């Protein structure tokens, strides 16, 4: 089997976590298929990234060009198409990120090779690449194979593949990539941070949601800190709004908002029928409740049966520590 490409993604001076996950998976697939793992790094100054990804790759292709400071789909597509045509890898692997959604589909059309996106598992079965995807709101798993072809493009779901320690010393090959196109049909005009105030909890990736067990308005401060350290927003169940501890635009549930965050951390929420209707399609749900029998535990992926006043302060501290190192 020919080589495996893994494209490492970076934004505002940091290698994306998902890239470490795809590099780990790529390494495992390459070892199994006894083939080379080539990490592709693209940017204006790729040295720091190249050294980091070298730990997983047999070879690192560092594509440098002054006009590649921001990760933009059009130039990335040009570069990857060139490299793939030149080196004919069997698998091109990248994270299922916002960039990949702009990049992967046109790339697969340009190269006329199959594409599978947001995969939760990738495996080799006697030489064939098999991928698994989670469909129908996470209620069904689908396995796919590919028609015979030279190259297969796969994007991996964030958080599905564990990061393994890399122990290689991949050889770094720097290539310049002059390109004339100005892509002025699609001018990049910079980043915009989401405006604060008037929060729309349906847009938040992380929701720290609080129920009646919070007992007083003042305790919401403690929950706010946890939400901040997680980069998320505070939401709540209906009684909290009834008490006027939080405005109604924070309310999750039938008469509040329906949310689909990546993480829904339910604190002292019993998980009433109306509330669950508003949050059941969260990707991951964690419940902390004193009552082991609380229905929320039937909906949550993880749970702690304990008093939130004990857990939340420690959890906030632990998360802060993990973020620092």
């Amino acid at each position, binding site marked *: 089997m020919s080589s495996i490409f893994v494209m490492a993604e970076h934004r505002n001076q940091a290698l994306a976590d998902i890239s470490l996950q795809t590099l780990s998976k790529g390494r495992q697939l390459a070892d199994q298929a006894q083939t080379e793992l080539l990490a592709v790094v693209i940017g204006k100054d790729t040295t720091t990234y190249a050294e980091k990804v070298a730990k997983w790759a047999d070879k690192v292709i560092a594509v440098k060009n002054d006009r590649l400071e921001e990760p933009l789909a059009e130039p990335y597509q040009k570069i990857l198409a060139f490299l793939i045509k030149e080196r004919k890898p069997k698998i091109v692997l990248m994270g299922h990120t916002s960039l990949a959604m702009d990049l992967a589909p046109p790339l697969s059309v340009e190269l006329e090779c199959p594409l599978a996106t947001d995969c939760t598992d990738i495996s080799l079965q006697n030489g064939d690449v098999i991928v698994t995807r989670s469909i129908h709101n996470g209620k069904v798993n689908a396995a796919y194979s590919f028609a015979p072809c030279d190259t297969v493009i796969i994007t991996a779901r964030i958080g599905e593949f564990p990061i393994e320690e890399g122990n290689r010393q991949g050889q770094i090959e720097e290539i310049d990539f002059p390109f004339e196109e100005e892509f002025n049909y699609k001018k990049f005009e910079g980043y915009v941070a989401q405006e604060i105030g008037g929060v729309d909890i349906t847009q938040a990736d992380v929701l720290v949601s609080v129920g009646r067990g919070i007992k007083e308005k003042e305790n919401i401060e403690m929950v706010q800190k946890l939400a901040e350290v997680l980069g998320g927003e505070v939401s709540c169940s*209906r*009684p909290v*709004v*009834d008490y*006027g501890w939080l405005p109604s635009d924070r309310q999750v549930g*039938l008469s509040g908002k329906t949310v689909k965050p990546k993480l829904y951390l339910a604190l002292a929420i019993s998980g009433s029928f109306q509330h669950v209707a508003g949050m059941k399609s969260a990707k991951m749900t964690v419940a902390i409740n004193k009552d082991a029998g609380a229905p929320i535990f039937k909906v949550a992926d993880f749970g702690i049966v304990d008093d939130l006043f004990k857990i939340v302060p420690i959890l906030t501290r632990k998360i802060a520590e993990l973020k620092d190192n």
Partner: protein
Amino acid sequence: MTLADYKYADTIHRCFRCGYCKFPVNWMDVNNCPAYARFRMETYSCGGRLWLTRAWLSGEIDWSDHLAEILYSCTACKNCEVKCPLRFNVDILNMIIAAKSEMVEAGRIPSSVKKFLENIQRQGNPYGHPRVKRGEWMEGTGIEPYQGHDFLYYVGCVGSYDTRAQEVARALGKVMQKAGVSFGVLGNDENCDGNEVNKLGEETLFEMLAEENVAQFKKLGIQKVVTLSPHSYNAMKNDYPMFNGDFNVMHYIQLLDGLLGDDRLDISGGYNATVTYHDPCFLGRWNNEYEAPRNVLKAIPGIQLIEMERNRDSTLCCGGGGGNFYIDLLGGSERSPARIRVREAHATGAGILAVACPNCLTMFEDAVKAEGLEEELAVRDVSEIVAEACGIK
């Protein structure tokens, strides 16, 4: 959409905004319009709502989310109609509902109303739960699907799907079984009665629901219907005849009143409690049924019935009408009507707040929790009280 083709163009300007509609019939308070009691701004009074409708339809103000919320915070509780001294009072709710229809046809309605109506379009209930789960409430009760029984026992969406209201649906079923009433249910084949859809202004959807229900009832040869909810009772009694659905419809409390009359129900078990009864708008003001619930409660040994200041046609709406039990535009404050009403009930010294409507039931259950009165005031449907008095567990 201009004022010209609005059905009540020649009436809507007649509102003088003199504020009678804010008072209960017996004057026993100031704020009996639930939306005005909740927000206490003139825009939310009935008069404010009519003036804003006219201003919107004549182009003086534009549509906005806020305008839609003002319109949809009207729970169709009919206090304004019974109180307004002017001759056009019979059309007040028609005017508000016609304005809601304008917003429905333009597709621009509050998102919670949109979800409510879409769920009914798809699943026949406002929660959007699958139709195949509508009959789950009756598992283990021995209640049979309707086949030529004397009565159709029509449960409705709230009674079928809301966990707390399901208990009431079961209690009533057992009481009727005990009284030897011949009745059957539609289970998963039961569809929304459309009363709220009608009050929300989705005329065509209401027509479809009514036509389909009438056709279904006729196909099954149903003559008599007993409903759990006053909302279903209202639609079937007052609106279905327009779709030549002329069934003998009664609310369950009228049936119980009759059963107690011919003592087909042994309630000697009694029910020792001080009880205050809340008149649901669609039983009271809409259909003038005030005495049957009181007869039933007074007939039960051990019950001491106390009236709240605002009773009968002066009742304060629980805030759950006009779809608000789900849409809930009046929630989120100690001024929510359900919480005002729960405080009023508690003030009478009663330990039990008796209701005769699943919507009121769910609104007051939440309000009692919000007021922290769980230990002092319990919310019970009259059928649950009768069940206990009959020794049904």
